[in-house]
Structure formats: C-alpha cells, structure tokens
C-alpha cells in the first residue's frame, strides 16, 4: 500500500474507533488515537501475517503490551478480516468476547494483556523460541511510555539483549502523557533512548504519527545480534483537535456535541485524503 492509502486507512480507523467508543460509552480514546498509525503501518505493510496464516507457526507475531488501546486493535483486525465488523459491534456488551483488553479468545490476538509490563517479556520468550527452532519470524510489541515505570519491562529488556534477540522489535508509543498527567512528572522515565541503548538495544527515534516513516523504519532489518527499540514520538489523541495532548482524554468518552465535532474533523481529513 502507498503512503496516501495508508494515511486514509489510519483516518478511517480513527473514525471507526471514535464511533465505537461513543456507542459503547467506554474506551481508551487518547491511547487509541495515539498509536493508530503504528498499528496501521504494522498490519497493512509490515507484519507477515494474515487471517489465513494466523495459525502458521512461521507467522510474524504482534503483542500489544499497552492492552488498554484495544479499540484501535479490534478495528484494525476487523478491517483486515480476522473477524466480522458485525461481531465487533457487540464490544463491551454483556458476555461479548470483545472486552476492554486484548484476549486470545479473539482471532488475531496472540496473548492476553492489559496489566502493563508483560508484553516485552512475552515477546522475548516468543523470539527466543524462534531462535531455538531456527525459524525466521519477527516479533513486534507495542508499549506505552507510562508503562516504562514497570520493573518487569527492564527484566525483559535485559533478557532480550542477553539472548541477542535480533528478531524482536519493541515500539514505545511515546506520547508523553499518562492517566495522571505528563510522564515526566508522574514518574520520569526519560531518557528512554539512552536507557535502552545501555541495555543493549539498537534504538531508532522517529515520528510515530508519520506512516511513511514508520513503514520505512519497520522494514529495516535489525542490527545483527541486537533487539531493536523504536521510540515513536506521538501525540496522544492525534486526529481530534480538542483531544490532542490532553491527559484527561486517556479514557474519556466524548459527549454528544464532542462526538459530532470529532466525526466532522475526521471526515474532513478523510475527504481531503480521498481528493488528493
């Protein structure tokens, strides 16, 4: 897919997610919008995986460590055909499998996440299994920047480097905000690039809301013998003017008026991309 098509896809996924959260009355709005471009880049251009190959042992794996941004993951998976959009309409209803964090009861989701600080370790275990089996699939995981305060992240980082897991790419959705405010104020985890480099990762810093840069970077092979960290600078709430960079939009649900305004803003973006 070319960059314009991917950008259009990202805007459409933002709109679908915005609608889904409004309808359900629950969701991690700001977190979903922050990492939308990362998920679109992965699922439409990078991951060697389709619904047909999801059970194939040689498929690439994606583990979403920041499990709370599940609404965007669901919408991307439904759009890619892992399950129907009709099924997804049951999100958050009584006994729906589409709950507020990823579960492996859903086709396309590898592991149950939601409690932070698990994804990098799970991914490192999967990446080590690939090495033991001499299989060449790649493992991708997406973490939040607030999540970097979890000690288990650093146990896993040490492990990934110790075992030279160059089939592992960790991405940090670096939007600088968490539920209580700026990450630098709540618990300062900066400088993340220097920290991961010191732990033995090859670190690349990019604009995480730029799809073309994301795709280009994700397609570069790892430095031999090193796990990779992509520090993706993003804007929380990206794409909805009044939600951008506002910590309260971490899991805020739009009012009727905000909803209409958000729909209009995203439709304008979609219209512009279609006319180009």
């Amino acid at each position, binding site marked *: 897919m070319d960059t314009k098509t991917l950008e259009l896809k990202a805007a459409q996924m933002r709109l679908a997610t915005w609608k889904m959260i409004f309808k359900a009355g629950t969701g991690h709005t700001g977190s979903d919008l922050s990492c939308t471009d990362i998920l679109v880049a992965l699922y439409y251009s990078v991951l060697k995986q389709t619904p047909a190959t999801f059970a194939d*042992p040689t498929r690439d794996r994606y583990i979403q460590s920041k499990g709370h941004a599940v609404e965007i993951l669901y919408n991307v998976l439904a759009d890619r055909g892992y399950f129907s959009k009709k099924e997804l309409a049951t999100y958050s209803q009584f006994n729906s499998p589409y709950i507020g964090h990823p579960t*492996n009861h859903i086709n396309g989701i*590898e*592991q*149950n*996440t*939601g*409690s932070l600080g*698990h994804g990098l*370790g*799970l*991914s*490192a*275990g*999967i*990446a*080590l*299994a*690939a090495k*033991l*089996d001499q299989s060449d699939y790649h493992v991708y995981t997406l973490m939040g920047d607030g999540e970097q305060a979890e*000690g*288990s992240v650093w*146990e*896993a980082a*040490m*492990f990934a480097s*110790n075992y030279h897991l160059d089939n592992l790419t960790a991405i940090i959705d670096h939007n600088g905000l968490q539920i209580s405010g700026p990450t630098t104020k709540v618990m300062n985890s900066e400088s993340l690039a220097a920290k991961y480099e010191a732990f033995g990762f090859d670190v690349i810093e990019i604009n995480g809301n730029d799809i073309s840069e994301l795709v280009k970077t994700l397609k570069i092979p790892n430095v031999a013998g090193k796990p990779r960290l992509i520090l993706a600078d993003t804007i929380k709430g990206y794409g909805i003017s009044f939600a951008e960079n506002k910590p309260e939009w971490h899991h805020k649900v739009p009012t009727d008026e905000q909803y209409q305004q958000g729909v209009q803003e995203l439709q304008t973006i979609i219209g512009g991309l279609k006319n180009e």
Partner: protein
Amino acid sequence: MSEQMKIGDAIVAQLTKEAEKDQNILAVTSDSRGSASLSPYIEEHQKQLVEVGIAEQNSVTISGGLAHSGKRPFVFAPAAFLTMRSIEQVKIDVAYSNNNVKLIGISGGNSYSDLGASHHSLQDLAITRAIPNLEVYTPADQYQASGLIQYLAVSNRPAYVRIGKIALPNIYQDSASAFVKPGQANIVINFGTDAALISSGETLHIAVETAILLKSQGINIKVVDLVSIKPLDTNLLNLLADQTELIVTLEEHSKYGGLGSAVAEALAVRGDTKIQIVAFPDEPIIAGPQPEVFKYYGMDAATLNQKIAGWLK
C-alpha cells in the same frame, strides 16, 4: 531404588529422560540451577536450558512466550518467590492466556526453615489454588514425583508443583500407582474407619507414622494422600466422610487456604462432617531445625497421635 530420595532429584531425573524424548521441553531457571539440583539435566541437555538470572517475574513471562510458540517450559524457582513475586505473571501469562507452562516451586513450605519468613512459602497452595486453569500438585516421594513428571511432560495444561528440600522415605513402590491421574487421591494406609488423616507432600510420612502409633493403641485410621490439590478428588472425600467419624488434615502450609481448606470447602455442603485442620498458625513461623519447628507447632506424629485420640473420645 534407594529407600529415600529428595523429590527435586527425582523430578530432575525424570525430566532428563522426558527431555530426551521431546526436544521442546525446556528447564527455565532464575539462577536456581544449584538449588533445583539441575546438574544431571544440564549435563545431558545444555541446549534445553534457559537461564533468566535473578528475575522470577521474567522467568514466568518468558516461559509464557516460549510455550505460546510450542515449547514446554518447566520453571524452577524457590516456591516462596515463584508464587508470590511472580503470581501476577502466573495468573495472566500462564493460566489466563492458557500457556503450557509447568511451575516447579522448590524448597517449598517450611523447607528454608532457619532462613526466616522471607523464604517460607506457607501461602502458596492458597494462592495457586484460587487461580482458574492451574493444576496444583504436592508429590510425597520419588515414585510419585516421577509419575507426576511423566504426566506433566505430555499434559497441555498449566500446573504448579510444590516440593520440599529433604530426602523423603518411600511411600509407594512404583510410579504408576503413586500418581494415577489429575484429581485422584490415594489411600496409602487403610487400618480402619475410626478416622481419616489426609495429607500430602512432605507431611505425608508424618501422617503414616501417626497412623502406626494410633494402631498400637487400638485406633484404626486411614491415611489419604491428596497429591492433587487441584483438581480435587471430591468422590473420595465424600466416601471418607460417609465411612469415618472424623477427618483430620495435616499440611505444611498456613491454616488458611491450603489442603485443609480445600477439604473443608468440599465437605461443607454436607453439614455432617467433623473436620480438624492441623497446619501452621497465622503468624511468622519460628526459625530453626525443621523437625523441632514441626514439633513446636504440634505437627509431629507423637502430638498428632494424642490430638486424634482426644478428638475421638
């Protein structure tokens, strides 16, 4: 076979054989290969060993990832750390995600007696038993350990195994009768129906000694080995409640939430069963040589003999 053996040695001996048959079996350790007696395994299967360093949480999460890609990891770590520090990893990355990870809690219960409460695991059965999709076992001798590992090597279900540190006398003669299947308890002594004494793991031999002492005084009891803490053999428990006057449980665990609680929960609905739970009290346990500690808390054969005789009067 020798007359007694450390359960850890029996587990490693059997796992070494199983790893020969199945290259996907891995031993995962958190700098615990010495205390887990893993040397014989490592000599044969260096490539089937994953060292995680002193990082118990990560040892469980990594194993979840390994199992998700078809490996069969056996995580060896002191029970105190594996079931407390790593319990969220056990809950999510093993049980909830249904990853085929076997957790071997070594030096469990009061094994590190003189090292203090930081190293005791007297709550591990309570916490692991409460996690859905996790089997819980407490083998009592080398044959049972061997039978259990034969089962775990081919089972696809997550499990926690709690073992101790000392060499234990043989209770069984072969592995097939020692460990039959998940959810099956064994009657190891059947002198009569005056009472049933239910135990497992390192305290089972104390239960056997107690039954022999009681017999010499004309009190004839059954001793039951509840090796499978979860799933629980509720059929046998109900049969014991039908047949005997009194059920006594003995365990190397807090009196809250362990083997005694499991038995009491299963039989509470009947409303007709007298149950006495013998276990460690709800307080930090006195440090010292294990037999003296057990005697102090009334968990030795001589004291149990008196207690049971008294309860039956």
